[in-house]
């Protein structure tokens, strides 16, 4: 899968191995909080939350012997910007083949950004029943929340500039496992020599490498 037009890779956040390790750690955290996994379920937010939820379910089963049921949530019809966006998101449909009443539902998504997707997912989920508890697992938390939402399980937290894009590629959807941080091309070419990146980079993480291609 190629990157969106006008964006360049600034940093590789995860390769295949690191992604696998991260998911294994998240699965263990889930099991730690719900030791027998009885009454728990994973629900992935389409598109890439679904393969992530399926992988987490496999890892959870390996860790505690119980495979939680997995559902898929298409939040398109609950988006708060549906009448403002064009073109139309393609509808793939919600598929939750079990009752969520009285269960602990772990919502799974690839990137937590503004929180608006999670807001839509919560609204949709409660139309399907009354879970005992809803938790949130995300592979990458990139900040810039616009709603009071936080994740319970986080693969990797990082500080980003608002214009950046965190692109999660999964072999089920994109043919490879890789997570990259992209930046707008014009930030590099149009910005004068003296100008630095506009926002962000307040705190560095140990694993962060120097940006590529600059």
């Amino acid at each position: 899968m190629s990157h969106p037009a006008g964006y360049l890779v600034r940093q590789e956040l995860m390769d295949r191995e690191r992604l696998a390790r991260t998911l294994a750690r998240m699965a263990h955290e889930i099991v730690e909080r719900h030791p027998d996994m009885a009454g728990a379920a994973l629900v992935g937010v389409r598109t890439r939350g679904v393969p992530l939820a399926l992988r987490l379910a496999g890892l959870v089963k390996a860790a505690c012997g119980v495979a939680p049921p997995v559902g898929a949530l298409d939040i398109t019809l609950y988006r708060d910007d549906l009448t403002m966006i064009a073109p139309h998101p393609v509808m793939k449909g919600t598929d939750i083949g079990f009752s969520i009443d009285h269960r602990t539902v772990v919502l799974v998504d690839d990137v937590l950004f503004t929180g608006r997707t999670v807001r839509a997912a919560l609204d949709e989920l409660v139309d399907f029943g009354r879970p005992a508890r809803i938790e949130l697992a995300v592979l990458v938390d990139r900040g810039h929340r616009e709603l009071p939402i936080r994740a319970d399980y986080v693969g990797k937290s990082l500080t980003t500039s608002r214009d950046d894009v965190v692109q999660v590629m999964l072999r089920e959807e994109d043919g490879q496992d890789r997570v990259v941080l992209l930046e707008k091309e014009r930030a590099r070419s149009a910005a004068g020599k003296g100008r630095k990146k506009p926002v962000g980079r307040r705190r560095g993480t140990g694993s962060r490498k120097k940006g590529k291609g600059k």
Partner: protein
Amino acid sequence: MKAYPHRHLLGIEELSPEHVQTILDTADGLREVLDRPIKKVPALRGKTVVNLFYEPSTRTRASFEVAEKVLSADSLSITTATSSVQKGETLLDTARNLEAMNPDMIVIRHSSSGAPHFLARHCRSAIVNAGDGAHEHPTQALLDALTLRQKKGRLKGLRVAIVGDLLHSRVMRSNVWLLTKMGADVVLCAPPTLVPPGIEALAPVTHRIDEAVEGADAVMMLRIQRERMTGGFYPSDREYHLRFGLTAARAARAKKDVLILHPGPMNRGVEIASEVADGPYSVILDQVTNGVAVRMAVLYLLLGGSAEAVA
């Protein structure tokens, strides 16, 4: 993401195969909403749709209303029998007055061909054609195609026989446009008195039902539209049934897994025998369910996104 560039749905003729595909794919994605415990999603909250029906309708109007409610649009339905149309108000005046109430969409059924196109020229609302005269009934053709695609997995290469009152049928016209666009082989069948002039340019016409049904993947029966007939188009219902009615024996000439479709309402014992209408190959009620999904898709595509492209 796919762009859907049309503001109105006036007919199938002007749609590209890709746009037909987009509508069908969207309907497939939306159908699942109808099976949910709470059959309502907030997608079109705050949008208003007027259903303006100048002709009787059960299925089409009910399914537009259900689709509007499921997507949380506000809707009002106006039937001419109880409206000021009875006092002589013109179509344009009615539409302009309704528009003054700021609807986002008008769904119109009218006995005159081109009435929706006329409204599209004069109104700012999105216009959806719910049947105009003997011209088009686009959502019916879309729901027929959705049913065929769902049961057969494809449209391309299917042999579809359309049998019955071709002359008065907007359903036939929309279906011929849609099916031929999508690569199906269509054959039309009717008595010579019920064949509209020039239709053979779109699809081959036969006057023998056995010939039309032979080897068909699907047979679409059309209603004899008595209310539109002023002269003697055929001697009697009994004779029509003998010569052109779909009986179990005739249906047996089609492929083993043939699908029997009818847009409704049916004249049992005239164009279709009850044993066929209620038989195992009939998908007539699937058509009705799919009708809601298709109308949801049309509402979603015409009202859901913004007309201006956003980066």
